[in-house]
């Protein structure tokens, strides 16, 4: 479990990093918090020739309130999000979900950009981005572009990010009236989810509107459960329609129908959490 030899670069600006990435392309890996990449290197599951450490690029870090959005720098660490009053006020779903991401020591280093770039299907942050309708900024030597979370996650560890692009920021649209709900089934505290749901929506006279529920740990990628959410808006909260949205496969954690059943429970509990009623 020793790293293979690699060249280590530590750019001090996004432009410099983008140029290095353009030069090395496929042979390079970006290093953020390293909480996934380091074990991957140690187990030699990847052997990149060049490592580009984003850790010294100051303006990739930080949380800022813009006119219509909350802006999160890609290199903002989980711990800073967890303690941020701005996040708690404008994106409380993230504050709710963060304690479920790994453990304190890992949250001290792991970054939101690293998580969204990695796109683990069972990870909490990608699902939150989807539920919140976030936009993701990708930057290369050609310039930058913004892409909606819904168009960004494409498959198992697969995203719309090109090899030459750096994930530089995330914007979360402000929606002051919006309510949030979250639930996750995991075998131990801090584990990746067996099934989870992150929900946002408005509640008027006890009825839910504009419900967006992102399921994670249920499929190859985080998925917006559109059918089940529509049903929930009409009062069917139990995720009965969920199989139209996600298709868990049998794996070491259980057979497909068991995993679907757990996903349904996560859906219902996240939505009831959003409604503010107790999680039966």
């Amino acid at each position: 479990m020793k790293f293979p030899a690699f060249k280590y670069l530590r750019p001090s600006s996004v432009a410099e990093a983008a140029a290095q990435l353009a030069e090395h392309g496929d042979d390079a890996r970006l290093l953020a918090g390293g909480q996934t990449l380091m074990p991957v290197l140690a187990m030699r599951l990847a052997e990149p020739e060049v490592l580009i450490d984003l850790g010294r690029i100051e303006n990739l870090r930080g949380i800022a309130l813009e006119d219509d959005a909350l802006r999160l720098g890609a290199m903002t660490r989980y711990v800073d999000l967890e303690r941020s009053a701005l996040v708690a006020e404008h994106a409380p779903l993230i504050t709710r979900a963060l304690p479920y991401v790994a453990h304190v020591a890992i949250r001290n280093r792991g970054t939101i950009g690293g998580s969204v770039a990695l796109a683990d299907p069972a990870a909490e942050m990608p699902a939150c981005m989807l539920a919140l309708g976030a936009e993701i900024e990708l930057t290369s030597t050609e310039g930058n572009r913004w892409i909606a979370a819904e168009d960004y996650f494409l498959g198992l560890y697969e995203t719309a990010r090109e090899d030459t692009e750096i994930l530089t920021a995330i914007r979360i649209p402000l929606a002051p009236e919006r309510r949030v709900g979250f639930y996750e089934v995991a075998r131990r505290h801090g584990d990746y989810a067996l099934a989870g749901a992150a929900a946002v929506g408005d509640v008027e006279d006890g009825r839910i509107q504009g419900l967006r529920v992102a399921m994670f740990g249920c499929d190859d990628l985080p998925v917006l459960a559109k059918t089940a959410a529509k049903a929930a808006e009409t009062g069917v909260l139990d995720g009965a329609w969920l199989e139209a949205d996600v298709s868990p496969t049998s794996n070491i954690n259980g057979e497909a129908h068991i995993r679907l059943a757990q996903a349904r429970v996560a859906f219902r509990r996240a939505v009831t959490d959003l409604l503010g009623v107790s999680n039966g």
Partner: protein
Amino acid sequence: MSIAATNAPIGQSERRTKAKRLVTGRGRYTDDVTARRVLHAAFLTNPFAHARILSIETEEAAGLPGVERVFTGPDIADACNGWTGNHDLFPKLDSPQQYPLAVDVARWQGEGVAMVVAETRAIAEDAAALIDVTWEELPAVADPVANLEPGATVLHPGKSDNLALELRLGTDAVDAAFERSTLVLEESFRFGRHTGVPLETRAILAEFDPSEQRLVIHQSHQAPHQQQELFARLLDLDEQNVRIVCPDVGGAFGIKLQFSGDEAAVAVAARILGRPVKFVADRLESFTSDIHARDHQVSARMGFAVDGKITALEVDDIYAIGPYSIYPRASIMEGNHVMQLTAASYTVPAFRGRSRIVYQNKGLMGHYRAVGQPLGCAIGEVLLDRAARKLGVDPVEIRRQNYADLSAGPVTSSAGVALEGLVLHECLDTLVERMDLPELRAEQTRLRSQGRYRGIGIAGFIEQTGPGPNYYGKGGIPVSAQDGCVVRLEPSGKARVFSGATDQGQGADTAAAQVVAAALGIQADDVRVTLGDSEVCPYGGGAFASRGTSIGVEVAWRAGRRLRSQILELAGALLQCDAEALDLRDGQVIELATSQARFSLEDVARIGHFRPYELPEGFQPMMSAVEHYVPRDKPTVVGNGIQGSYLEVDVETGIVSLLNHWVVPDCGFVINPLLLDEQIRGGVVQGIGGALFEELVYDDQGQLLTATMADYLTPMAAEIPDIDVTRIEKPMGDKTLGAKGVGEAGTAGAVGAVLCAINDALVPLGAGIAQTPCTPARILTAIEQARNE
């Protein structure tokens, strides 16, 4: 027991002497030990469960700058005798010859095939990746049940089947007893394969001096004297020229008790190259090359009379081991324990047991904490609970009325366990009180009406600790059941202890310091204990089978007492009085009649060491003492205890939340309550791991699917409830201090308690589970099955 045994610091909660050093980062583990010109080893391992090695191309690897040598299986086998994991008490076990690295055929995924020795571990790993092996994949033997069927693929050429050994106990009288029973319950239990996961992985540093033909090994191991004999034997060296040093060891649990091929290969390389060679297993290597444990499928039948009395028991076990029986201790004991320890504390009038030990293309099977005991306990307790429900008997009552009757003295269970001096009823009564069982039941009922499923489990267990010499000695296995101990008086009046016991975090050294301090009338801090060096320490067995206190501390006490007598003789000679008239207290020699201090211990020690001319002519002061101790009168020290678990099952997700856990162990005489409680708690956590989380999952091709800490789940602090320990202290009343081992007690009962509690929670759903770990999917499947029935 001598009165003096009640002297402080015996019975006090002394903190572990090493704890401060270890937590301040000053521990010295094997990997911290270095040597000039040291080289590092990395292994190329078998990627298949079973494969023939057609050719190995090592040239490119050997040519990488920084690589010293690449060894293949035959290279190492040329310089190391082979071994077999056999046992003379079981002549039918005929485990084939093994070598440090695979020769021709590799038989489990992770078995070493080639070794690179290089300037750094990273270079060694780079080079290992350049070794080119041409494999011929062979069919995997990876389903113990199917592999016993006639016509199944046979793992070892020349053998007629995959059965390594069949053990049988009991009699066929059991059939008639079942026929006469009012109720017969039958269940197939499955216990997943798991392992011990010590924080410090296996590690070795081998140094060879050709001028003296001397091998010095630093190794993270539990039994240095065993290793001294084995390295000498396998490398054809003189035993007095082999030294095994076990520095600080970061947990072991039986994972560091056997002999491992990779470690032998490292010693051979050090000898051939004349340079020190180090190997520290990484976590991936640990999961595939450490010993595994459990992996049993047990069909159990229990018969009952109408009043709930047990009438008959049958245990039919299939024990899936590796492709070989483990060396040197053999992969037998766990099958035996599953049979013998099912319902062991109850009167079972008729019994029959069978354990079939089956070769598999999987990791080797060794002795992990509590060896089979948790399985036997779980089987008996789950069936007893079921009977209680069916017969409408209270679960506490059914236990009480079935307990073995020891009122007329020791009895032998029908499975052959000698039961003596147990405190069954007292443990049960204490547990019921600590749990506040009526209140818990009321809460359970209340919450059930709100759709919440809580469960209460109770599991009593029998522990066989501190074994005597019969099992290994008669088995022809060079494992010492005795420990030696030397206590030396320093001129300052303080003492040093050298013992054949070892410590991997239990506090064996602290307890030894306490008893020696008590014997000499000094403080525990005044005693320094050296363990784990095969050259310096008296010969001993090291740590296994909860023997550290009942044997290792016993012998320290005896050596301390002997030195005490010698000191009193010396003081008596000085004072011209009888040694009997004197005592040692608070660092002083006391005259008993007057309670007056006559000398300090330091004065006496300095006279003994430096000024013996002050003593009468011809008097030889004896400044150190040696004792050896082996329990001869019984095969093991049998203890018992009971555990309770309270938990909630989320019947929609299958997640189990542990709420409370109680342990009432029978500990005999207690030397250090703090160490004892922490042993119990640590053991419970490992039992909980087996009950809920930990599993080495192999697919049907013999590939290990859970070889990282992300896939192999160990329990973490957040999952563990408060563990309440209430000690029952009943010294054994023989000539010993009377301490019983408790190293395995926590593990032995926790699996059963948790399994019983989960089953209790599922009762309203008509569901039951008999497989560990109880994963969410398995619990949901059990509920689904009950619903479909």
